[in-house]
């Protein structure tokens, strides 16, 4: 491409011309400082070859500017990004936790199909709005009911820690809205639980097992060992403080305090006293935001 071809504006030019021409793109866009701009303007008045070279550059850039976007990025690309991230998160299951790897991972791998769920939500949204709290409670009740038959003891043998369970639950909660586009982060919990509820409802048996695994604190003998913050829709749609406790140990689970999963996905172990202070403060926040 760099042959010996000559053209009318390709008269021999010195270093000045060369460095001037390197500044032409910025000059055209008005991005040069005043003194540089004046220097080029002056030079263009004196050097016909550079004036033509500038026109050539402008011709090329104008031609490129007239070409439309040759590729239209599909709207679904954004969803695909989040599905990709979700899968990546799901792959990050602790290796020391075979029950989670085998069951939960498989279940999470089903999450990228929430097109089904997303289609379902608008259709049944009114129904869901009025019955969601009942669904969540019903789901938890089902875990309690099915626990003796679904390998609760096996999950405990796997030896994963309570904090790990909560952390992984947090990942699910965090990942889910990436796919649904839910605006309020407090809807994450509902999204995950509702999805799992429907999975079970559709007869996907692992739907029950996976959340039952996650919902089990190894330190507890109780069938349902975590409590979760179940919020009304008014509360969900209120402006909320950033770090909200959403799932926590029941008091009997540990001797010195409770593991708490926060809305941002972090898990912290709090003394009973600190936990109660947090909960009171949080509930005051709820009341304030409701007013």
């Amino acid at each position, binding site marked *: 491409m760099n042959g010996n071809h000559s053209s009318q504006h390709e008269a021999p030019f010195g270093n000045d011309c060369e460095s001037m021409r390197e500044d032409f793109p910025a000059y055209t866009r008005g991005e040069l400082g005043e003194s540089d701009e004046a220097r080029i303007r002056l030079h263009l008045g004196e050097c016909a070859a550079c004036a033509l070279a500038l026109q050539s550059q402008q011709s090329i850039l104008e031609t490129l500017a007239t070409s439309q976007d040759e590729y239209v990025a599909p709207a679904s690309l954004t969803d695909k990004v989040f599905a990709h991230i979700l899968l990546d998160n799901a792959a990050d299951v602790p290796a020391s936790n075979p029950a989670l790897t085998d069951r939960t991972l498989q279940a999470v791998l089903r999450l990228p199909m929430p097109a089904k769920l997303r289609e379902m939500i608008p259709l049944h949204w009114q129904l869901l709005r009025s019955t969601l709290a009942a669904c969540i409670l019903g789901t938890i009740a089902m875990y309690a009911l099915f626990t003796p038959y679904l390998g609760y003891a096996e999950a405990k043998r796997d030896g994963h820690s309570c904090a790990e369970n909560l952390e992984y639950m947090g990942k699910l909660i965090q990942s889910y809205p990436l796919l649904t586009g839910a605006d309020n*982060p407090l809807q994450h919990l509902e999204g995950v639980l509702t999805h799992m509820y429907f999975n079970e409802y559709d007869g996907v048996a692992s739907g029950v097992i996976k959340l039952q695994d996650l919902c089990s604190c190894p330190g507890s003998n109780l069938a349902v060992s975590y409590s979760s913050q179940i919020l009304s829709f008014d509360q969900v749609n209120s402006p909320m403080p950033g770090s909200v406790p959403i799932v926590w140990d029941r008091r009997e689970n540990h001797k010195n305090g409770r593991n708490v999963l926060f809305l941002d996905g972090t898990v912290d172990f709090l003394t009973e006293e600190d936990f109660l202070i947090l909960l009171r403060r949080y509930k005051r926040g709820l009341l304030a935001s409701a007013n």
Partner: protein
Amino acid sequence: MTERGSKTDEQLLASYSKGRANDFRELVERYRQPLASYLYRLVRDGHAVEDLFQEVFLSVHRSLNTFDFSKRFKPWVYAIATNLARDEMRRRKSAAATVLDGLADCEENGLYSIVADDLSTPDDMMGLDEQKMFIRQIVDELPEHLKTTLLLYHYQEMKYREIAETLSIPIGTVKSRLHTALTQVAHSFEKKFNKPIHQLRVLS
């Protein structure tokens, strides 16, 4: 909270790193068309673009903890995209080389002469649109380092400083690459049509 839409890229990313997933969605949405177009201009394959675009933002997601929030997001994300596209192009080039090796025997059957005929359309048959198409084609065929510089400058409307940051090169190199790219396009055009390229402005 700042009103949605007025947040900078860096603010959206910072917000995502604190757990606001929907701000990341907005960031991805903001880059969907421009970044995907940039990738397409590099790899010329829609399916590959989708994969690369996902990889770019997965990489952003994974690097959240290491991102220096005092730096600008745009050059960073374009740097990731450029590197991934570069790897993809290399991979394709080596795959294509393998195929071409296999085709070498076909030369005797006249395959190459047919291709050469297609490329040598008589100049006088080419109108203004064809001339413009030729320019775009020449840009497409520029060496990768010149092409990325020109694409970032022209289509992504980056300043020299941002291009330098994206490609990890000095600003002086950006200037000279841009100049070389434009000069090469002009030379190719003049060689093909036997007239200076600035005459296009007069015609159009």
